[in-house]
């Protein structure tokens, strides 16, 4: 009975929100970066986190795959669940968590290795491929999904750093996809890219929505409006307003949101 209840319970949560944060506060030593933030993130949607610099949106994002653990003196309070599991519970291994919650960073950061090795690294350390053929398969599929395969098919052995900025960022996305995550966190993935590369990456993000839950931090409100279904506005370590993107951008309830999206501050 209990198991059924759990399954039912999980299913409800899966339908509603894949990630749920309740009263999350983050401290860097004495300084408080996030103050009691609660946010539900729906599955297979793109959730945009917007707000002025230093408002805590990246900090929040990095809590979701426990990347903040690597920061000296960082302390996280509150409850964050991914598919119903408290990710800060002692039994949770952050290494496995990060395999399920992938991350793409602001600056494209491919390893200074070949394109193939960049993508193959994740599956290799997690033992996702039993042999070379399976690994080849994962690498090619991931590059395909990231829309990069046609551009690099004949130079898989050249170094990842030799690609253009936009290609590097899509390589980083392919690398994240290769670990077969459910959720992908993106921390301003287009801020270092030119408009054409940005358009390509945005297109890719929209395509990925079908199979992945995506949370994206962005400074560009146009980008948030273009690609996300849900938007949360952060200000001074708190969530001021959260709602459907259309609604938030057309009729914000809070005056601070209004001020930010019309460009009066931030």
């Amino acid at each position: 009975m209990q198991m059924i209840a759990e399954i039912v319970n999980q299913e409800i949560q899966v339908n509603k929100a894949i990630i749920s944060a309740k009263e999350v506060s983050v401290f860097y030593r004495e300084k408080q970066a996030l103050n009691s933030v609660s946010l539900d993130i729906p599955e297979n949607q793109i959730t945009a986190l917007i707000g002025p610099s230093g408002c805590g949106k990246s900090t929040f994002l990095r809590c979701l795959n426990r990347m903040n653990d690597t920061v000296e003196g960082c302390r996280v309070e509150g409850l964050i669940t991914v598919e119903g599991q408290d990710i800060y519970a002692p039994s949770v291994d952050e290494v496995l968590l990060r395999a399920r919650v992938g991350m793409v960073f602001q600056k494209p950061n491919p390893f200074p290795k070949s394109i193939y090795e960049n993508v193959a690294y994740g599956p290799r350390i997690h033992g996702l491929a039993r042999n070379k053929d399976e690994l080849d398969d994962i690498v090619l599929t991931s590059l395909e999904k990231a829309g990069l395969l046609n551009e690099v098919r004949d130079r898989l052995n050249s170094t990842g750093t030799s690609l253009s900025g936009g290609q590097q960022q899509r390589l980083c996305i392919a690398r994240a996809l290769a670990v077969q995550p459910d959720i992908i966190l993106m921390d301003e993935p287009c801020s270092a890219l030119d408009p054409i590369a940005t358009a390509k990456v945005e297109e890719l993000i929209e395509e990925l929505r079908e199979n992945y839950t995506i949370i994206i931090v962005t400074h560009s409100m146009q980008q948030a409006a273009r690609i996300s279904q849900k938007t949360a506005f952060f200000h001074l370590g708190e969530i001021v307003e959260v709602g459907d993107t259309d609604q938030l951008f057309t009729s914000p309830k809070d005056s601070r949101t209004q001020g930010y999206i019309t460009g009066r501050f931030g």
Partner: protein
Amino acid sequence: MTDMSDLKSENQWMSEERKALLGKRHRTERRFKMLGLGAIFIALAMLVTLFVNITSKGYSAFVQTRFEMNVTFDETVIYPNGDRSAQAIRGASYGNLIRNTLRAEFPDVEKRRDLRSLFGIVSKGASRQLRKIVMEKPSIIGTTTAIWLIASDDMDMFNKGYIPRNVVEADRRVKDKEIKWFDHLDAKGSVQKVFNWDFFSSGDSREPEIAGIWGAMVGSFYTLLITFAISFPIGVMSAIYLEEFAPKNRFTDIIEVNINNLAAVPSIVFGLLGMGLFLNLAHLPRSASLVGGITLALMTLPIIIISARASIRAVPDSIRQAALGLGASRQQTAFHHVLPLSMPGILTGTIIGLSQALGETAPLLMIGMVAFIVDIPGNITDPATVLPVQIFLWADSPERAFVEKTSGAILVLLSFLVFMNALAVLLRRKFERRW
């Protein structure tokens, strides 16, 4: 508005006041450049003086004077008892062969004292030379063959011009009669300077003309091998732990400060530590490359840790984040990504640390590697000496001929150091990465 146009006017740009200021600025700049050039010039001049001095003294160590003599490989001398075994050949008195040869060459020398001087123009190493020839080719016994025998150190010095003829005989190490014998041989074309293989292939000796640096080179090699085998893994592991895993707190701060202090400790102190710890306490063999290597490893360790930490720190955080974000553990991040990327820098630091260890003398004196050792060390526990200690020993020897040996050994040591440092520069050039 009128002020603005005033400022832009020609007068303002080229006023006398401004010109003077500009002139002063250019002058200071020129003066600074001259100072810098001067400093470099002085430094280079010192370096050139050092090299010219050592090379001019040392190049003659690479050649050796030899006398051509018709040696009769007399059976009665080699087999006095009729015993023809290999052991008898090895134990035969080759000194007698040489003495007979010299007598035959200079039949008019008869007085005992003169004979002793005559026998002294050929090196004591010449009998070893003959033994080697006979051992390799026993068929030579019974024949008379022209052999280039190694000259004694005094004859060698005389031939190389270090002992001038025009000095009063009493003040001259080479006496008139010896010069006469030399001239006699020289007139026959029986004096030759040949490349001194012995210098590179034999161990130390009391006789300068046959003393070589091979023993010291092998000793240096074993010592550095031990130093590397101990200090490299420990140093790299400590650096990785401190940079990638250790929490940043007061304890690690203290460790860091102490590692920096350790790098500045005088090397003789490490020598005393090595003596107390490895010889007196652990009873490891005295004078052995093993102990020398461990002692030098203590000294090299902080250098390797510091340089390894610097190159690990130079790996950008984005690489670590990328790996961690994929679900790599911290250890996987460190060993799959950070370490390979910092390896060129670590190796450069290691080579520089090792070249420092190669030139180190003081700590090795403390652990007895200063002993006079003729045999080539066969393993790490054999008594050995190293190049800089060999230089120290020769520099301390009274014979005139050791002066050139000293400089020659310095040249060899310097070329090793230059080679190692060039390798470090090359590594850095080749693998330097721009992020």
